[in-house]
């Protein structure tokens, strides 16, 4: 029974019509790129009149597109690994110490989530232009580490909250060293939380456009920046192929995260 509406049929019907219109509005734009991507390479066409793989061929043979994809993947992988390396130990220290000022530090690590990206983009642009880091891969990776830190932080901190602290105490009492405890007791319990955070960070970096638009140039252009200028200036149908590839990738990552979260919920 549907208590929320009382027993009014009319109310229920109106709400469900409105809801379905909204589902369509949210769903269609994400999915419509798929059929377009198999269509006419000359213009954006829906429904496509012929089915071809021409747009994918164009994407994979044009170094401007393909190269920016490789650059994006490289930046996203490097960002994810380096953020993990920095953020997991930091999260552990925040959760398992009584250092004064750790709340303030936690606030600092969460801050990139709260500051408008355009402000960060401008600040980094001003800073990197005097540090000589503009249009370098190192520069964009540094910026992305900063941007993805809060997401890994949130995930790992919640993993630490749910992990069994008694195991660590027992290991300590039995004489295990700090390092042994971290690698043998803490990390194994955090596997899922770390994986969720890593997938999030990877996707964030892969899709990030505003900061990358300020910091990259012709040498280091990432895929989102290339897409941004393409949508702005030429609106080529190749965009449909790129969009389809990205959507499939996002979906796989989303499914991975959901599956991992289910698993941790089931085991805790």
């Amino acid at each position, binding site marked *: 029974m549907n208590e929320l509406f009382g027993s009014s049929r009319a109310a229920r019907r109106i709400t469900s019509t409105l809801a379905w219109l909204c589902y369509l509005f949210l769903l269609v734009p994400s999915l419509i790129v798929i059929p377009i991507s198999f269509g006419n390479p000359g213009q954006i066409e829906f429904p496509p009149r012929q089915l071809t793989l021409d747009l994918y061929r164009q994407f994979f043979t044009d170094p401007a597109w393909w190269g920016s994809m490789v650059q994006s993947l490289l930046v996203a992988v490097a960002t994810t690994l380096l953020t993990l390396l920095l953020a997991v130990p930091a999260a552990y220290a925040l959760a398992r110490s009584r250092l004064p000022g750790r709340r303030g530090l936690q606030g600092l690590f969460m801050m990139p989530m709260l500051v408008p990206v355009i402000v960060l983009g401008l600040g980094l642009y001003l800073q990197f232009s005097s540090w000589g880091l503009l249009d370098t891969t190192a520069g964009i990776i540094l910026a992305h580490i900063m941007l993805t830190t809060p997401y890994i932080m949130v995930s790992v901190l919640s993993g630490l909250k749910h992990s069994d602290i008694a195991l660590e105490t027992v290991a300590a009492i039995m004489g295990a060293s700090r390092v042994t405890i971290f690698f043998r007791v803490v990390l194994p319990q955090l596997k899922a939380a770390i994986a969720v955070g890593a997938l999030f960070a990877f996707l964030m970096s892969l899709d990030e456009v505003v900061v990358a638009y300020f910091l990259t140039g012709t040498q280091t252009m990432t895929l989102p920046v290339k897409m941004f200028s393409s949508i702005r200036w030429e609106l080529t149908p190749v965009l449909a192929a790129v*969009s389809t590839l990205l959507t499939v990738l996002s979906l796989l990552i989303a499914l991975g995260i959901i599956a991992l979260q289910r698993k941790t919920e089931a085991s805790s």
Partner: protein
Amino acid sequence: MASSTSASDLGPGTALLLLAPLTVLMAAILLYPLGVTVWTSVNNGGFTLSAYADLAQSTLFLKVLRNTFEIAIGGTLMSLVIGYPVAMHLAAQPPTRRTAYLIMVMLPFWTSILVKSFALVAVFGNQGLVNQLLGFLSGGAIKLPMMFNRVGVILGMLNFLLPFMILSILGSLLSLDRRLILAAETMGAGPLRIFWRITLPLSMPGMIAGILINVTLSIGMYITPALLGGRQDMMVANLVDFYTRQTLDWTAASATAVVLLVLSGLLVALLGRVRGAAGLSEAGA
């Protein structure tokens, strides 16, 4: 929490060692550039607030500020009006079906904003799906310009904002005690009255959180107005970019960015208070 299990606590030395690298990085790549921005905005051969005074008199800045508020508030209100019935629909579903519908709501959340922008142009643009259909139905008489203008920005904004609004309201609706509704119904209240007197007031915390999240997110929007709006729809973030790249006026760009930073800081603080008060910790998750 861990007050009794001191054996698993890290000493201050170890903790510092583990925290130091990330702290240094955040100081260098987050705090420092923010500092540089603030400094650039007030430094013109010495401390001066002239950049802010100039902004306050610039017709461009004032128009952009008005655009930003109009679009952010208009988009948020529309997202509330559209999102509310969707949240009610979701709340009324049995759990398994709700999960299936939620995936549809979450899909845009997972999709790259560039993919969505491109797709919206393909659907609502002049040669897009909707206009093709309208042209076909009307024999070419009707063509609605829905992209590269205010309508385009609002459509893009809604596609981005709705999931956050829906999830916030859904959180409140799911925690609502449904026996209240049954009781009201037993005593003869009609559906409208139940909605106004019970459902709506009790979902207020979720609505307020959703509104604040939406305004905060939309006030700093850059991509959507740049790709789906026209020249007339520039928002504050686009103005920062305009000053940086077009006029190369870094002082004005920084001052504009600081204004945006303060505005969104106020909204985030407000959101923190509301969430704290309502005990909502993960409305956006």
